């Protein structure tokens, strides 16, 4: 119901945007943990890239944060709340402060581009506005602005399924920004894209979030892209964090620890 004007800098209520994860554990099947006791502090700004081989729990970690996956145990402190224990309305209100960009864009394909961007306001507007597609005028205007920002100003009324992969991901980014998030999660945002588009998308996420001082957590399997855009790299292997530091500190031995084996480095 809060359709008030969004803030651009630090959260208006002065609450920090940092995220503290403590002892997070997730088992899909009892006794087989995908995440083993992960503890991690994400500063309230900058881009954190999580790298690691597939199947290592990167995606699970990200999805635990906005509770698309429920963690088995542990806590995630964000803005004074433990995300792990939230339910119902409190969970939805926490989710609307956390934008998410997906690997396969996950746009609602039969909706138009602008409707997809406006989906970012669903946590704020009452149901009848969604039903009648009568979003507050300020939201609509801002959706257009965001589309301009991601370079899709002319595509507002196209259906999402008519866009290319890169364009869809741009809409996904606009949708996340539309939430006025205090944190953006990106789950392999570039794995379905070609190298050039991947670069553009990463740059777009880093720049648009940086302007707004929104911290970003990105899962990325492309180490070079991660190094290029991240302020911090977290390396994961077999459900555990094995590296945590600035990109410059990431050396070959760390990569060996993360990905194991040697042959692939050459």
């Amino acid at each position, binding site marked *: 119901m809060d359709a008030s004007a969004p803030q651009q800098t630090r959260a208006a209520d002065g609450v920090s945007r940092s995220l503290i994860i403590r002892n997070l554990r997730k088992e899909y099947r009892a006794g087989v943990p995908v995440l083993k006791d992960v503890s991690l502090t994400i500063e309230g700004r900058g881009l954190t890239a999580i790298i690691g081989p597939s199947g290592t729990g990167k995606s699970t970690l990200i999805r635990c944060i906005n509770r698309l996956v429920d963690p088995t145990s542990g806590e995630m402190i964000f803005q004074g709340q433990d995300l792990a224990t939230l339910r119902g309305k409190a969970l939805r209100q926490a989710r609307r402060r956390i934008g998410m960009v997906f690997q396969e864009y996950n746009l609602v394909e039969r909706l138009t581009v*602008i*409707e997809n961007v406006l989906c970012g306001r669903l946590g704020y507007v009452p149901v009848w506005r969604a039903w009648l597609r009568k979003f507050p005028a*300020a939201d*609509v205007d801002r*959706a*257009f602005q965001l589309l301009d*920002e991601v370079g899709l100003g002319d595509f507002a009324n196209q259906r999402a399924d008519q866009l290319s992969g890169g364009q869809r991901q741009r809409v996904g980014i606009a949708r996340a920004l539309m939430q006025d998030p205090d944190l953006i999660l990106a789950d392999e945002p570039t794995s379905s894209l070609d190298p050039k588009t991947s670069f553009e998308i990463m740059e777009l996420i880093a720049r648009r979030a940086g302007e707004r001082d929104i911290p970003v957590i990105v899962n990325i399997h492309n180490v070079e892209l991660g190094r290029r855009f991240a302020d911090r790299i977290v390396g994961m292997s077999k459900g555990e964090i094995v590296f945590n530091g600035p990109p410059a500190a990431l050396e070959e031995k760390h990569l060996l620890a993360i990905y194991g084996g040697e042959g692939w480095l050459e």
Partner: protein
Amino acid sequence: MSTMDLPATPLRRWERFTLAERLGRALFYLIALTAIMWSFKTIEIIPEFLYDAPQQTVDLFARMWPIDWSWYFPVVHPALVETLHIATLGTILAVIMASGVALLVARNITRSPILNFIGRFILVATRSIHSIVWALFFVAVFGPGALAGTLAIAMHSIGFTGKFLSEAIEDARRGPIEALIASGAPPLSILIKGYWPQVKPAFLSISIFRWDINVRESAVLGLVGGGGLGMALDTALANLYWDQAGLVLFVIFIVVVVTEILTTLVRSRII
């Protein structure tokens, strides 16, 4: 960039639909709403009947329960067998007749638009008249009994079966057929050796699907004199033997469930 600043240009607006679309929809909603209101206002419902509806419903089930199983072998079992025969025989008849009509309708077999149209008309007309109405006709002509029921099932099924059969025939690929034509095969051979192998899976699947429907339909045809379980139900209802009616309903339920499982199994085997 912030919307906290007063925008220099007026806010950009957005509407989900164009004006014409909105008008079209508004008109449609208006018509729909009018039709619904009209239906509500003018339909004749006798309120007195409504007051004791819950009581009547309870009464209905109280009379059906306990079900009188002793009626099964003397009355219901023969009716059940008759229903199954009506459904099966009706389906066979329908498939035979529908095959003829389907050949008439399929444009790759019959090249005359007039014949196509006649075929199409037969399909639509037989389908539009419900099997119960067909049964009323045939009961008037042949008298009550299984013959009327079988013919009703057969006639009504022509439309459905013929429609899907003709589509299957039109979907047949030209390649093998042209090869046969080139080898100088007579028309009947082309039909049997060229079309039949391609149409066969669809043919079987359509027949089985229709049989499943026909079992349900033949179970009620007896209400107008078409024989089978419906006749047993009608007799029970006319005599107010509710426990017997309950038994018939139970048997119908079982038969419907079993045929559905059976057809699903058979179809997964042959397709």
